[in-house]
């Protein structure tokens, strides 16, 4: 058992536990916090995979932006402290069975791919040149330029759509009138 394996197992366990707690927490705000723990666990997993950039992006974007957005949404639309509700629904056993079947199916499919069926970690690219390669790949005409620019248009669409939905109702009525 190398240190790496121990760290991986602990991180995986914490991430999964946090995921379960997201669903099982009686208070909605606690669920949001457990989600943050789960996202942090994924960031640590990225570090273990030698993907430094993805790890920090995970924290910056998911925890620093999206989780805060979720917390805002929860706290603005609910009475914060007294917010409890039933956490189980009667057919939870059905959900468990379907989740296990899905997991089994996905594992079977993934293990078909020879690269993933090997035991032990495969060689990983050096962390140093990866970022520079990613940068040039993003603007290289033959590689990821089109998805890169389409991503910006997608973000623009998200921005405009969000504003169209979230703008105060009176301003929208005035504009429509």
């Amino acid at each position, binding site marked *: 058992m190398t240190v790496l394996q121990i760290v991986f197992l602990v991180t995986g366990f914490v991430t999964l536990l946090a995921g379960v707690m997201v669903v099982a927490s009686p208070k909605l705000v606690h669920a949001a916090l457990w989600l943050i723990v789960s996202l942090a666990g994924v960031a640590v997993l990225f570090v273990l995979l030698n993907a430094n950039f993805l790890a920090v992006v995970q*924290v910056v974007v998911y925890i*620093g932006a999206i989780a805060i957005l979720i917390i805002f949404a929860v706290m603005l639309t609910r009475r914060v402290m007294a917010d409890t509700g039933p956490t189980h629904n009667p057919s939870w056993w059905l959900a468990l069975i379907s989740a296990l079947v899905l997991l089994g199916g996905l594992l079977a499919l993934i293990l078909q791919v020879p690269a993933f069926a090997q035991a032990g970690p495969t060689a990983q690219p050096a962390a140093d040149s990866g970022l520079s390669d990613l940068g040039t790949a993003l603007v290289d005409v033959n590689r990821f330029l089109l998805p890169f620019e389409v991503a910006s248009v997608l973000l623009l669409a998200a921005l405009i759509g969000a504003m169209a939905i979230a703008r105060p109702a009176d301003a929208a009525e005035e504009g429509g009138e």
Partner: protein
Amino acid sequence: MGDPFGLIGQWLMDLVTGWGMQPVAALTLLRFLGAAILATVLLLVCFLLIVAERKLLGRFQDRYGPNRVGPWGVFQTVADFVKLIGKEIVVPDGIDKPVYWLAPLLVVMSVVGIWAVVPFAPGFLGTDLNVGILYIVSVGAIGTLGIIMAGWSSNNKFALLGAFRAVAQLVSYEIPMVLTLLVPTMLAGSMGIAAIVEAQKDMWFITAAPLAALVFLISSVAENGRAPFDLMEGESEIVAGFNIEYGGLAFGMFYVGEFLHAFTVGVLFSTLFLGGWQGPGAEQFPLLGLVYFFAKAFVVWFITVWIRGSFPRVRIDQLLSLNWKFLTPLALLIVSLTAVVDKLAVEQGWSRILALLAANGALFVGTMAVLGAYGRSVRLREERLRATAGGLSTGIAR
């Protein structure tokens, strides 16, 4: 005097491996010790920093600062700390206990974590992450999380409201900060802080990107929550905002976090734009590099205290307008212009620094012109309103 830090590191390694440890375990132990020493020293340095700031603010306001406790009042913060320990942490009913107690810890952790990637001297730094800049941003985001946790777990309307406004401020000012951080990354070709400092060997980045440095400074001061952006704790407005229900040392941790962050802002600015430990003779004598590093950090910290003592607080709507209508478009323009001009200068063979300075100067002049026109239009509108109102009340038509 060769390389004192390398010598000390080597001596420690030899000592620990001499006790029979494997080199890898020895290195890990030394790293743990280094982290522990760094965190402790940082929190202890706060004692001096807080006194220094209070005395400086006092001088700006034409009075002595604290000068009773110890020579020149240096032990004032120690006295405050002792007092805070002795205070009862009044815990209100109905709070969310684990979240309530975790919040101040997260805020302090987010500031201490930044220091892991800061290079104090050549070869003397916590760790050389190749994504140092984004790491700093990510650790800072955890502080924002701590504040919102503090606000809502307090079971207090004012705290919740204060936390919302604080998070709106922190989150907004993160954008110009992250955008201007692109500029040192571009100029150095790497996100690693050590690499950025190395790249400033010939010329500090502030000469190549003065506007980016300025926008970074402004947004960092706003991220920190200092005047003129100290809405988060505006005592006359929202009674200490998100940390209303925190007493004693729990409040003390928020306080320490804020002051340490102020010094960290100075350190980051001097590392990214003023060359960090670079200076004449720093390569040969790393100790000199350490001196330069702290000198520059203190100069920038002094400037932030100066700003604090000079400007009144801005309102929340002014705060957000300043960010989204001025700093963010300006940051976007700065990044675009710097990227294009620098590449053009290299390709055409012009002098890079002069071209960048000219571009920055042009952008500055343009911004001032736009601001001036805007100010003039606002003033004209107000005068017209006053004229019509005055005309109505006195019967004189204009």
